[in-house]
């Protein structure tokens, strides 16, 4: 992707924006914040691509977005914030979001990138500045924790 090719940049932004925003939502639980973070990430990607300093736009975009979500996560107060005018979501979804947000940000990012966005361990490591073994370890720990949290939540709901 050359810095002066606005057409290919626009195509990339158009194709990646929805998926990036969904990943951001899974990370922060707030559609408004997810939209804002995604917009900022893609704006930086466009500006830096025009300067010719972006080697892999996917790695750049997801790495920037995950880092932005990690920083914003510290100020998060609610598990789920729906988009304006949208209906709420099912209780099971809220339980899942709640369980996700009880994980550490890095652990959550590994699960989102691996199981929602479908990146392999190598690409996920590049996005989060981890080696492959660390990605596998985070993923294993995250899935175990998530399974446990979901089990506890379902038991509480049933009880």
């Amino acid at each position, binding site marked *: 992707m050359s810095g002066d090719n606005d057409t290919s940049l*626009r195509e990339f*932004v*158009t194709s990646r*924006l*929805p998926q990036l*925003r*969904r990943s951001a*939502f*899974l990370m922060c639980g707030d*559609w408004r914040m997810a*939209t804002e973070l*995604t*917009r*900022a990430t*893609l*704006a*930086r990607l*466009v*500006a830096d691509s*025009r300067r010719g300093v972006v080697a892999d736009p996917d790695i750049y975009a997801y790495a920037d977005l995950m880092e932005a979500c990690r920083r914003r996560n510290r100020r998060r107060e609610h598990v789920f914030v*729906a*988009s*304006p005018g*949208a*209906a*709420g*979501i*099912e209780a*099971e*979804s809220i339980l*899942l*979001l709640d369980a996700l947000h009880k994980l550490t940000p890095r652990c959550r990012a590994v*699960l989102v990138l*691996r*199981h*929602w966005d479908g990146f392999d361990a190598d690409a996920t490591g590049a996005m989060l500045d981890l080696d492959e073994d660390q990605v596998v370890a985070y993923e294993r720990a995250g*899935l175990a924790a*998530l*399974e446990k949290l979901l089990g506890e939540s379902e038991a509480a709901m049933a009880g």
Partner: protein
Amino acid sequence: MSGPLNQLLEHVLEGEPEVGDEVDAVFRRAARLRRRRTQAVLLAGAGTAGLIVALGYLLTATLLESPPATVSTGPTSVVAVTPVAPSGAPAPTPPTADGVLEVVEPLVMGRGLEVVPASQRRGDGWRAYGIADEQGRGRGTVQVAVFDVRRKWCFPVAAEPDACARPDHAGGLEFVRYDDVSDADRQVRQTVARRIGGNRALAVMAVGERDAGAQRGKPALTGAQVEQVATDERVLDAFEADENCDDGCPAFATSVR
């Protein structure tokens, strides 16, 4: 749990808002980001340039204010060499350091006249300045000369070569005025002065324009002003110690020797 988790997450994303004009918003934001970065670069450049200018100014000011390098004058390490002027050559005083002119010129200008720069002449022990009025017409000259005299030298009397004039005193100097304005076409104001007990006599003479009538024949300085110049120690000190008006010396109305 990869498969189930993927499917579970799909349900979480229900209620996703429309993308709308988010793509355009991304590009607008990218343009703003680019402008901010450009401004930041320009500001940083301007700041750096300002810093360089300030440092350059400080460095230059520091270097200019530092005292000139000095050479140790230890008796065994340095031998001072004084350049010797050729015999009869004009005194080596630079034109801008004419101490005589610094005394004469304000008095001339105070009378609405001016020293003509091109007319200034100087030699060993003497200075001469041509004077002009506001219309540029010649108003005579002012001549100043210093003479080596014997300790027993006395002030001359114009009418009697063997007689001595009784001098007046001003500070550490003694002087005699020799004014002669009886001839309208040759009006002269002259004073001869000497440091009391000294062996150098200073003659100051203001002569009006010759044969130009009584008005233009008036000397550029009054008798009192000529006396003032002659008894101003700065004038005597303006001459080098080895200067003596004996070669190409202008003629004075009353000869000193």
